[in-house]
């Protein structure tokens, strides 16, 4: 227990110190936290509840747009801001900027949670692959529709206000926002997975009919879980909008075939249905991705596609599954007799 506590403290200290120790890798680290956040939230439904969504990226994109619209709309008319031909220069004061960042991100989270309730009410009746395809459809449709709304800049996307002050410290701020959100999410999930509520969603995963027969109102549990996930993804999306400064609908916001799939791969790599699995998976996947992008120019997507295939086909238990089999004592599983381990594995 105390060893565990020390580990947590060390990790937390590393989290806080990282941007100060490696300022050149700030953007990389911030994106790493983004991956951790989306992987952890995906696992809430995918791993813990057995609903494999391919559409969580919808909340990321929607969070970006909602955050941007709120932050800009508080001070300027959005339609004029996004007009390509505008000649007027719109400038924000630092106070306006940070208020926009805070209110916009919170608003994005709330909006996405509400959106999850509505979309969930429609899609949670779908089972198995149909749920995956249906949610993928929602994400693609979201991007396509937003890219046709001129008020939101259409296919041009939105250019956010320029961050005030020194850029390096702005980047550090963005890092801490992502890291803070990630740590809060992690602590929340640590608590959440021990509640009765989580036991109910695990029951849904294991056998939904039986759970229903036991009197669990499954739809309500599914909706609440997804809404919580969407809340965090929405906030992360809004922070990304401020981080990227300019974003566009199809490839940055509703990036279905990038981040939308990567988050699933991260979870599978690390291990579904565990707390640490998504975190470890996100770290390894992100590092692998950056390395191939640097040293495998042009072929990076081949390497990435191959990695996805290998993970999915050969390694679906994930690293956590592997460790659990190899070192069950790490997980508090007491190994008493030789026979017991064999049946367990």
């Amino acid at each position, binding site marked *: 227990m105390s060893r565990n506590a020390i580990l947590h403290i060390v990790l937390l200290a590393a989290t806080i110190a990282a941007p100060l120790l490696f300022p050149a890798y700030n953007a990389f680290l911030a994106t790493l936290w983004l991956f951790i956040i989306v992987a952890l939230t995906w696992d809430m439904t995918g791993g813990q509840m057995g609903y494999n969504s391919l559409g969580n990226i919808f909340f990321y994109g929607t969070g970006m747009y909602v955050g941007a619209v709120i932050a800009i709309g508080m001070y300027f008319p959005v339609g004029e801001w996004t007009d390509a031909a505008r000649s007027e220069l719109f400038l924000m004061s630092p106070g306006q900027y940070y208020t926009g960042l805070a209110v916009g991100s919170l608003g994005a989270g709330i909006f996405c949670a509400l959106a999850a309730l509505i979309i969930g009410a429609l899609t949670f009746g*779908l089972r198995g692959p149909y749920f995956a*395809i249906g949610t993928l459809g929602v994400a693609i449709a979201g991007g396509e529709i937003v890219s046709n709304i001129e008020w939101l800049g259409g296919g041009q996307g939105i250019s956010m206000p320029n961050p005030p002050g020194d850029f390096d410290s702005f980047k550090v701020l963005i890092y801490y926002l992502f890291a803070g959100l990630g740590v809060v999410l992690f602590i929340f999930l640590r608590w959440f997975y021990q509640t009765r509520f989580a036991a109910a969603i695990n029951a849904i995963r294991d056998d939904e009919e039986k759970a229903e027969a036991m009197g669990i109102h499954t739809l309500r549990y599914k909706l609440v879980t997804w809404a919580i996930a969407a809340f965090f993804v929405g906030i992360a999306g809004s922070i990304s909008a401020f981080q990227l400064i300019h974003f566009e609908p199809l490839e940055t916001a509703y990036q279905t075939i990038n981040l939308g799939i990567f988050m699933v*791969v991260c979870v599978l790599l690390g291990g579904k249905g565990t707390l640490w699995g998504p975190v470890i998976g996100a770290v390894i996947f992100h590092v692998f991705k950056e390395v191939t992008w640097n040293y495998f120019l042009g072929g990076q997507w*081949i390497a*990435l596609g191959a990695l996805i295939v290998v993970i999915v*086909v050969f390694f679906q238990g994930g690293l956590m599954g592997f460790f659990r089999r190899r070192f069950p004592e790490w997980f508090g599983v007491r190994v008493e007799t030789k026979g017991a381990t064999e049946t367990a594995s």
Partner: protein
Amino acid sequence: MDQILFNLGLLVDYPVVNLKIIIDGVMIGALFALAAYGLALVWGVMNVKNLAQGDFVIAGGYVSWALVRTGWLQSIGLSDNIAALIGVPVAFLVMAGIGWIAFRTIIVRVIERDVFTSLLATFGLAIMMAQILNLLFGSDTQSLKLEYDTLYFADGLIDVPIAKLVGVCMAAALALGVILFMKNSRMGQAIRATAQDARAAQVLGIDTDRVYAFTFSLNAAICGAAGAIIVMVWVIQPFYGMTYSIRAFVIVTAAGLGNLPGVIAAGLGIGAAEQYGSHIFGISYQQAIAVLLLLLVLFVRLMQQRRKRQVLQ
């Protein structure tokens, strides 16, 4: 809004345009139907949901395109048109080979797994294929410009390029060939038996592993031939695969598995619906329309199931 009303007005003022839209829709729908039929086959027989379906189509298109561009066939005195037509069976065979390799390396390992696995694994395959095509052929859109005329009707409002007609005829011939094969050949019967009950088929002495391999190759081959037809009439690009995959999923979800007439009807219908949609709402909504149709189909199915459950209660 004005634009939508204006576009609707055009349909009323010039009724012949409806015919034009339906013809265009049916033509592209025929090719969607081919890709969807392949998907229905692998889905039904081995429960694999192949997200790389569209990439097989595009790869087949590039096989034919490369064949015509190298000029081997032209050097023995064949015209571009004939070379492009030969490209269809060549793409069929080459993609059958690629499908077999994909099956042996990847698909065979996901058959017995849960459904989500096959979606993700084939997605990885799709990413790899698109990128390999990009490296081999560049990211330009490509098409074969053939020396066919265009037929015009109704004051030139309806134009039917003969290339499109040829393409649709080849698609129909291919579909017919596959149907006859499935009905009459031993392998076709084995495939159908495996689809119904893999274990029983195995007990009866059918080598299901071979059946799976053959089915997946056949699927890739059908897609490849469809791609070779597409490159004669429309354009291809390494990253267009997703478009065809989505259409294939829409059609299969709407028509159900093992329902070939349904697949063809849904394919033609979705082709036409998309053309109508892009006429009325604007062409930029094309993809959105396809996806919304998918969602609509899913929800209608869901409602039907709910009703069934209520009846059971």
